[in-house]
């Protein structure tokens, strides 16, 4: 993370959205920025030089406006916590979404792909995730033969999964 990133993080946290970007009182901004960079005024000047900020008059004082909207969005995404994902909920939702409307069973291969895409994790991790959920909530699922992937439970093989209840 460089000084521009730090400057934008502080701006996004302290500032208010304005038509031109994020607006923040100059002194508040430089005081806070000074906790992490040695020369906050120099950083503001640098932002102005690279067209990522401007100074405007504000009443009797001055305000900084951070103008790079793409960067603001990136920082905003970075600061927004990911939705808490309950593992059982992920698997149940996946099965219900993928289940055949008549039988209620979903293909375990499709459920693994769903977990991969929903949690943005590789196949092996998605498989381990599914196995852990099944082990921990054994009574919440029933299984049937078939499907595109084989789940081995004890000495039995299954390829379809359904939520109980």
């Amino acid at each position, binding site marked *: 993370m460089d000084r521009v990133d730090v400057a934008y993080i502080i701006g996004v946290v302290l500032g208010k959205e304005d038509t031109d970007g994020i607006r923040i009182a100059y002194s508040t901004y430089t005081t806070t920025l000074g906790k992490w960079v040695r020369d906050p005024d120099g950083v503001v000047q640098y932002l102005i030089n690279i067209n990522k900020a401007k100074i405007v008059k504000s009443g009797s004082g001055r305000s900084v406006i951070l103008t790079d909207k793409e960067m603001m969005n990136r920082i905003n995404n970075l600061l927004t916590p990911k939705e808490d994902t309950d593992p059982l909920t992920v698997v149940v939702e996946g099965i219900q979404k993928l289940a055949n409307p008549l039988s209620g069973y979903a*293909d375990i291969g499709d459920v693994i792909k769903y977990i991969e895409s929903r949690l943005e994790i590789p196949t092996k991790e998605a498989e381990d995730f599914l196995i852990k959920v099944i082990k921990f909530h054994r009574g919440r699922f029933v299984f*049937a*033969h078939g499907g595109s992937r084989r789940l*081995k439970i*004890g000495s039995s093989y299954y390829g379809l999964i359904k939520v109980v209840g």
Partner: protein
Amino acid sequence: MQRILVPNRGSRIKLLGPSWRAARDKLLTMIDEDYQLITIIGRAGAGKTTLLLSLEGMEHGIYMYADMTEVKGRDLSAIVSTVFADNIYEVRNVQEKLRKMNIKGILKAFAKASLDEVVESARLKPMETLKLLNDAVEILDMKPLVIGVDEGLLSQDDPRAVDFINALHAFRNNMQALGSTKLIITLLPDVVNLISKIDTTIFDILRLGAITLPDYVAQEDLKEVAQEYGLGPTEISKIESLGPLTMRQLICLMNTKIDVIKCGVDTAGEISIE
């Protein structure tokens, strides 16, 4: 011991568990409401065959059960000829009643034909022969003619799937002509998945008349089965701790003093994906 777990014709079927009796009631209602293609869906051990066999001796109409397990083909010819060959008593009964009516025309020939000739006719001209039986049942006021076809397809990998689906199409296309005939088939979940992927037309027809059997034994079912087998509270709670069980697994546990391994109850913590 295994024969206890394999329902067969001739032995009186007693449906245990309110969930399964509800499924039978629904099935009978669908027959009364003139559904002509009814599907019973359930995983292995859910009780599809037992439910089909429980229709033997139904109050009205004629019931013909055909077990396709040992039949090589799955086309219409194989299915209809098996239905006739497996239900000689019912066919003979219809023929006798037709003969007593002094029936004329093509039904007269049907009434006079030997059973071998009828089965051969069913093999060579399945739809025409089925239509003759349908018409006979109507004339004799013995309707409905209910046909239960069990184990039509054994899995999603069954190479005869297309033949079986084509047979369902043929039946669907002739439902108007076979007005008194109701066809009930059993399907495993993976076969349902297969049909939904490869033939949406027949899938849409099937879903209109489908009964999904319970995938596991509910509390009230367990209570009734336990009572039937005289099980105590300790054994009941032991069974409850095993997780969701199919009806076959439960009956097996009753007959093996709760031998989970013999009954295929997966209690092992070892789970992997291959």
